[in-house]
């Protein structure tokens, strides 16, 4: 009978602490950026009263969306009963928790008054998607942590399936909440669509699976743990389906907007004459984040190559960040129409495309949060029995046969 043993990450101490030191340096830079923003105010960032959410939100929303998608492999194992993925479910849970922690850290440290976090945890307006998200995020931590524990504690493993189902439902709610932050903004023409909730769910599947594959490939390689090529190829095909679905939702989203005359301006701005936003949309989001990974993953020969899969995953992550930039910042750069159809000008920059250039502080804060997520994964892998000792073809076949 095939048994898969999960073991602590056994890379050399030098490599482990070297990795933590590198990530720690990025975290320290992020913390320094936060202190600067806290001390001087947001005046030192690229954000202003026109573009109110900037680079920190690009990183934070990306990480939060990816977090729910990282749970995908665990859901496939527990909820959809795919035995081959079961040994990877703990890694999936750990990555989900770490990404959410990193994303929320960035979001929180970008607040105008981060010292009032306790206010955000004690005063709730239940009509606010943000307030609901506070519960969705904390609930996700609790449910996924419990799920991870049930998977890792041998005596309780029979309950893991139920926890996996709860986590699966919760992650759908969580990403619906994240997409709705934008979807429910009726006055912003770039958003104002219920499609944003399912779009974000599909995006989360793509981002999360790409990050999961990257972490799996690197973590196994560093510790010389065999992973079945067939299994990776299957995960890569799954990623390809998510990437294609994401492209489909993006196409439908923009086609709906194109069809309605009142959205002509903003759709033209994103798709045609928005300068860097148009470039990021077509080259970053669509080509680098969609078409090229699809070509790599569906290629008969390259699709089996580990390097090509890793490259496709990196492209999906890069394309995802481009997509968040176009969505979040491009959506604000296009001005609000107070008097639709009229030309507007004012001292408050009405009626003009709002310029935005991220400051180094914002980028450092976002990278600090990303480094925090990766450091949490590294520590988790090292101290917990997360990563399968060996997951070669023989073991996968045996798992599937069971």
């Amino acid at each position, binding site marked *: 009978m095939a048994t898969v043993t999960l073991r602590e990450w056994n890379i050399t101490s030098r490599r482990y602490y070297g990795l933590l030191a590198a990530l720690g340096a990025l975290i320290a830079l992020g913390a320094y950026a936060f202190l600067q923003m806290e001390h001087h*105010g947001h005046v030192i960032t690229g954000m202003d009263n026109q573009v*109110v959410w900037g680079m920190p939100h690009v990183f934070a929303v990306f990480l939060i969306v990816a977090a729910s998608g990282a749970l995908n492999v665990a859901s496939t194992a527990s909820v959809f009963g795919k035995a081959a993925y079961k040994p990877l479910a703990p890694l999936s849970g750990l990555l989900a928790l770490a990404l959410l922690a990193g994303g929320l850290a960035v979001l929180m440290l970008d607040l105008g008054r981060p010292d009032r976090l306790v206010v955000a945890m004690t005063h709730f307006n239940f009509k*606010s998607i943000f307030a609901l998200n506070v519960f969705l995020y904390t609930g996700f931590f609790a449910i996924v942590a419990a799920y991870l524990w049930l998977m890792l504690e041998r005596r309780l493993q029979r309950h893991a399936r139920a926890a996996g189902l709860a986590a699966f439902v919760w992650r759908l709610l969580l990403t619906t909440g994240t997409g709705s932050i934008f979807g429910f903004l009726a006055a912003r023409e770039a958003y104002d669509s219920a499609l944003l909730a399912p779009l974000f769910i599909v995006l989360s599947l793509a981002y999360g699976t790409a990050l999961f594959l990257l972490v799996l490939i690197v973590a196994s390689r560093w510790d010389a743990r065999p992973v079945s090529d067939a299994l990776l190829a299957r995960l890569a095909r799954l990623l390809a389906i998510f990437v294609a679905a994401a492209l489909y939702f993006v196409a439908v989203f923009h086609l709906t907007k194109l069809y309605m005359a009142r959205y002509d301006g903003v759709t033209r701005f994103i798709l045609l004459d928005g300068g860097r936003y148009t470039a990021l949309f077509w080259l970053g989001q669509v080509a680098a984040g969609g078409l090229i990974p699809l070509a790599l993953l569906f290629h008969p020969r390259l699709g089996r190559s580990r390097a090509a899969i890793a490259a496709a995953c990196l492209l999906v992550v890069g394309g995802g960040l481009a997509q968040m930039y176009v969505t979040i910042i491009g959506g604000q750069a296009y001005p609000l129409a107070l008097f639709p159809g009229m030309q507007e000008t004012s*001292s408050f920059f009405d009626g003009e495309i709002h310029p935005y250039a991220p400051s180094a502080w914002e980028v450092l804060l976002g990278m600090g949060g990303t480094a925090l997520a990766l450091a949490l994964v590294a520590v988790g892998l090292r101290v917990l029995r997360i990563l399968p000792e060996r997951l070669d073809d023989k073991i996968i076949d045996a798992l599937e046969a069971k």
Partner: protein
Amino acid sequence: MTDRRRFLELSAAALAGIALAPGIRLIQVAAARPLDAPASGKVRWGLLIDTSRCGDDCDACLSACRKENHLPQGELRRTDAQWIRKVAVKDMRSGSARQVPMMCQHCAKPPCVDVCPTGASFKRADGIVLVDRHICIGCRYCMMACPYKARSFVHEPTTGQNPEVPRGQGCVEGCHLCVHRIDRNELPACVEACAATGRKAMLFGDLNDPAAEIAQRIAQVATAQVRADLRLDPGVRYQGL
């Protein structure tokens, strides 16, 4: 003797006057809402702005607002707060143009209040939409949600504040109709300044009171709400749009 009696009479009258005057003053003040009483839900404060009376080069309302609320003055940057601005609106087909003073529209159904996670953005019973500076966490979601771009974020440390209008780095703020003045039975600073120019383009009052001038004008002349299509029912109405 008569002089002495007259002196005593006058003194008594003066003393009585000194003693009674504060009482009379108190009676006047009592007509304003006592500070410990809640705002009345029967009142809905609003503005009627006649754009045809608004002067192209006049900025009396803007400077009065900045002075009253100690907002940034001079050359304004993209990060500076602007609670009221004049939007120049031009119809490119006909060429017709208007200057529209634009501030928080004090919606009956304010999106900023809906989206605020902590309830810092709130609507007072008398219709004034404002920010509770004690529980605003500076998330800026209200700025994303407001269709009128009425809110500003305080991007840097503030100095020289008006004690009645506290401002602070990291919080969101916007026009509160000079709530501190309204509670003293005074007009919002912009309305007072506009009246002082003689243009009288801004009229403040209780939209719910049929006897109020603002309600009567709205009943008589054609007025409009900006982005009425969003059905937020703003408390600021415009004439001559």
